[in-house]
């Protein structure tokens, strides 16, 4: 998992990269990386204009913003809308820098074209903490574009849209667009640019009384030089940023006109439908297929054995699925035909035994862990376990494909339009540029739609049959053929000194850490730390699941801190306060959540409170869960959440993401696991892979701290990791029962 991309020396690209372009070179945090931020000479307007500015009288200002003749400003956003609302917030950031009228701002998904890549998202991953400073070329084009192309950018993930594309791209694009409009107006009116003011998508010159809408100068602005360093607003000057502006995607979602991937279809063309069934075990192949019944069933057009899966194409989806259900298949043997979950966990345990107290791959090593542990006044040990998890998006995997005349059209919801384009090209046997992606909203992503396997399938079926085909996975297919959140075992040994202070921390686990910081606890003041991982084999395909490694390590680390607090005889909040003595932002968040929850106040008999704090995707979140244990199965009654995401660009959006992360996290913590029997996934649908329902959901309160206005954190994922440990810690407080294995429900059956 340590793939690297070697980027050619920029100096070799003679003629394309100017010397000027490297003034902005900077050093990444940790000194590991030296990355230049380059500027490509010229404005890319010409090459992109036809693709995104097709309307009458529309002029493309730069790659990320366009202005219509009606003075409507469209932000062209290289991210996908999957419920998280980030595209709207990013547009808000652009509109603010541009002094645009929010009522007349629209959001458009960028086309899946190589020139639109979320290079800033990549920058956050590639060079975290990188700050260009004054000399950085704050423009949206350049080396990062090149790098992103290599990596197949245009990615929506890593809670990165607002803090990267919004902060480092859209704001700059907005400010640049404004400066270009002002320059155009100054030339036309023959007045100094400095005397021109902008507000609500209007340009004005007070002395002469002149005032015109942005649209008037859109054409002239497009011919202006790209500003080298457009001036950005300070947080005091924000008009839209930091305010709970209404999301642009909501009306369509309320009135039913919103277009999701599954709604996609070629204009005026009768679609056929495909149902598919993949071989049940990873790596196995279809050996034989008996479709005698299926081929006589109503509506059935074609039946395909594709090797790795079987497909039926029919006039209707239900007909295709019914016919598919009647097909008898046999599969070739694999190495993992006899594997079950218990055996897999036993293998994990063996790998951890081998790693012992100091083996495995070191992720962090501070001080003398083993020596200090030896002399500790008190030792705490614990082993935790979490299962595989499926994403269970409400909209199942689906893709509509039409392959004809060497071209391929794709309608789908994806977090990675460019990779999906390549996946379609591969399936259809055409080049990337022969594929047209028709983007749509995603009915849930959570990381599942980072994997375009369903797109390849659709293209293959469309190519083989010649029909325009809408391929839809059944819920059973979706549950059993996901790219799962890894199962894991994590072991801890902690040493407490005489004062009950945590002086030694030794952790070993199996999952490869993604992101790398996920198992680390450097914000806790623990002098001796060792964090390691032991290599194991995975019987299932793995993927990114909302908050990725933090979803496991949040539970492991915060459960263990709680156990250490109890071993030290200290209150869990007080214990953490001591550990956070050198991390003031974390401490503020912890205190915020404790205060919201009335930590320490009386609760009814059988109720309990638990707290957890996790830093993920550059945001700090603490949650206090309240649980009622009087009814047998634990019931979460309340969750108090305090978040510091640097600066909340849209506080309403940030709160909504915290609430959603908490519900998704509690769902998994309480109910869900993907288990293996005879090498195959046992769960199939919502009856055995439950979702939290409204009547199970707690009341949630969210408080926001703007602790670092220039150092933004993510929103889509960070609300999730503290939910499980806060709940498990609350269960301990209420009942004395320590949950060391998820899901919680299996301990109360």
């Amino acid at each position, binding site marked *: 998992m340590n793939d690297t991309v070697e980027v050619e020396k920029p100096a070799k690209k003679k003629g394309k990269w100017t010397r000027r372009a490297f003034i902005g070179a900077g050093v990444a945090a940790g000194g590991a990386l030296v990355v230049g931020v380059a500027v490509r000479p010229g404005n890319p307007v010409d090459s992109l204009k036809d693709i995104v500015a097709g309307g009458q009288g529309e002029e493309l200002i730069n790659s990320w913003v366009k202005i219509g003749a009606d003075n409507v400003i469209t932000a062209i956003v290289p991210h996908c809308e999957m419920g998280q609302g980030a595209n709207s917030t990013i547009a808000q950031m652009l509109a603010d820098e541009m002094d645009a009228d929010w009522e007349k701002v629209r959001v458009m998904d960028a086309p899946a074209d190589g020139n639109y890549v979320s290079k800033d998202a990549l920058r956050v991953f590639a060079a975290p903490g990188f700050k260009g400073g004054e000399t950085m070329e704050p423009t949206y084009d350049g080396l990062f574009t090149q790098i992103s192309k290599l*990596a197949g950018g245009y990615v929506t993930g890593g809670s990165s849209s607002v803090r990267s594309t919004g902060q480092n791209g859209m704001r700059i694009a907005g400010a640049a667009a404004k400066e270009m409009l002002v320059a155009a107006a100054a030339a036309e009116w023959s007045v100094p640019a400095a005397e021109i003011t902008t507000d609500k998508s209007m340009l004005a010159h007070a002395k002469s009384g002149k005032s015109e809408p942005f649209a008037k100068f859109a054409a002239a602005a497009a011919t202006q030089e790209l500003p080298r360093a457009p001036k950005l607003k300070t947080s005091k000057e924000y008009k839209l940023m930091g305010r709970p502006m209404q999301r642009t995607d909501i009306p369509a979602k309320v009135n039913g006109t919103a277009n999701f991937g599954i709604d996609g279809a070629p204009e005026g063309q*009768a679609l056929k439908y495909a149902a598919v069934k993949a071989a049940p075990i990873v790596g196995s192949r279809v050996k034989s297929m008996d479709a005698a019944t299926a081929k006589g069933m109503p509506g059935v057009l074609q039946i395909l054995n594709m090797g790795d899966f079987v497909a039926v194409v029919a006039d209707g989806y239900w007909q295709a699925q019914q016919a598919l259900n009647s097909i008898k298949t046999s599969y070739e043997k694999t190495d993992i035909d006899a594997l079950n979950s218990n055996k897999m966990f036993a293998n994990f345990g063996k790998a951890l035994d081998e790693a012992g107290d100091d083996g495995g791959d070191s992720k962090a090593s501070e001080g003398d862990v083993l020596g200090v542990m030896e002399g500790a006044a008190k030792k705490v040990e614990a082993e935790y376990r979490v299962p595989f998890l499926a994403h269970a998006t409400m909209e199942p995997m689906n893709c509509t494909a039409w392959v004809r005349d060497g071209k391929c059209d794709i309608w789908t919801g994806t977090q990675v339009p460019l990779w999906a384009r390549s996946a379609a090209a591969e399936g259809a046997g055409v080049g990337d540029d022969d594929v047209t992606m028709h983007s749509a909203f995603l009915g849930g992503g959570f990381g599942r739609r980072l994997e375009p396997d369903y797109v*390849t399938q659709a293209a293959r079926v469309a190519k*083989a049959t*010649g029909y325009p085909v809408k391929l839809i996975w059944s819920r059973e297919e979706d549950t059993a053929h996901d*790219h799962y959140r890894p199962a894991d075992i994590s072991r801890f040994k902690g040493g407490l000194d005489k004062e009950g202070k945590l002086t030694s921390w030794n952790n070993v686990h199996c999952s490869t850490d*993604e992101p790398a910081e996920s198992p680390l606890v450097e914000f806790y003041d623990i002098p001796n730390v060792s964090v390691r991982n032991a290599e194991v084999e995975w019987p299932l395909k793995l993927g990114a699941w909302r908050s990725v490694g933090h979803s496991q390590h949040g539970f492991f680390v915060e459960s263990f801190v709680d156990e250490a607090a109890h071993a030290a005889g200290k209150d869990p909040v007080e214990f953490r306060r001591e550990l956070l003595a050198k991390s003031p932002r974390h401490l503020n968040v912890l205190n915020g959540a404790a205060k919201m929850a009335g930590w320490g106040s009386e609760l009814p008999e059988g109720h309990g409170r638990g707290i957890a704090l996790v830093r993920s995707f550059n945001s700090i979140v603490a949650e206090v869960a309240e649980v009622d244990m009087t009814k047998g199965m634990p019931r979460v009654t309340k969750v108090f959440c305090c978040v510091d995401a640097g600066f909340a660009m849209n506080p309403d959006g940030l709160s909504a993401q915290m609430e959603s992360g908490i519900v998704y996290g509690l769902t998994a913590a309480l109910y869900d696991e993907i288990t293996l029997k005879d090498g195959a996934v046992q769960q199939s649908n919502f009856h055995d892979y439950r979702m939290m329902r409204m009547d199970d959901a707690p009341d949630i309160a969210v408080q926001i701290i703007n602790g670092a206005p220039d150092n933004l954190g993510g929103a889509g994922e960070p609300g999730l990791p503290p939910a499980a440990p806060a709940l498990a810690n609350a269960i301990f407080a209420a009942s004395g029962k320590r949950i060391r294995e998820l899901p919680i429900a299996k301990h109360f059956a």
Partner: protein
Amino acid sequence: MRNIALPVLLAASVGLVSCGSAPEEPIEQIIVSEPGGAAAGVKQAAATAPAADDLVSQGKAAFAVCAACHSIEAGAAAGPGPNLNGVIGRKAGTAEGFGFTDAMKASGVTWTEAELDSFMTDPAAKVAGTSMTAGAVNDPEARKAITAYLASLTQ
């Protein structure tokens, strides 16, 4: 300047799009019908029934999707959508036993085959404020068949 080695964490988190092998063709393909060719079932029906009735029977089959919300038997109770028996010639928003939106009642539409076709194409565009937020029929052939089926029940 040193070479820039960029750890592609993204790629690690999402897995790589599979390598550039040639597209995998079907191992076995049972073709009941090819694009452009009429389905075998339809051919048989055409041999024994006049063309207009065939359109009606196709419409009846296509209506299966609509039947999730709309009842069609005379006098049957409305579901999530109104009963469509006798809809042709009816003024929009007047069928008994269904709570139409104000927008539908005020639409002034009288349902002809052409009006139904246009409504089925994009309900919210035809009558902004309709409660029919799903079930648009994209295929013009299917719309034609469904309206023919609905018309056959009006006579």
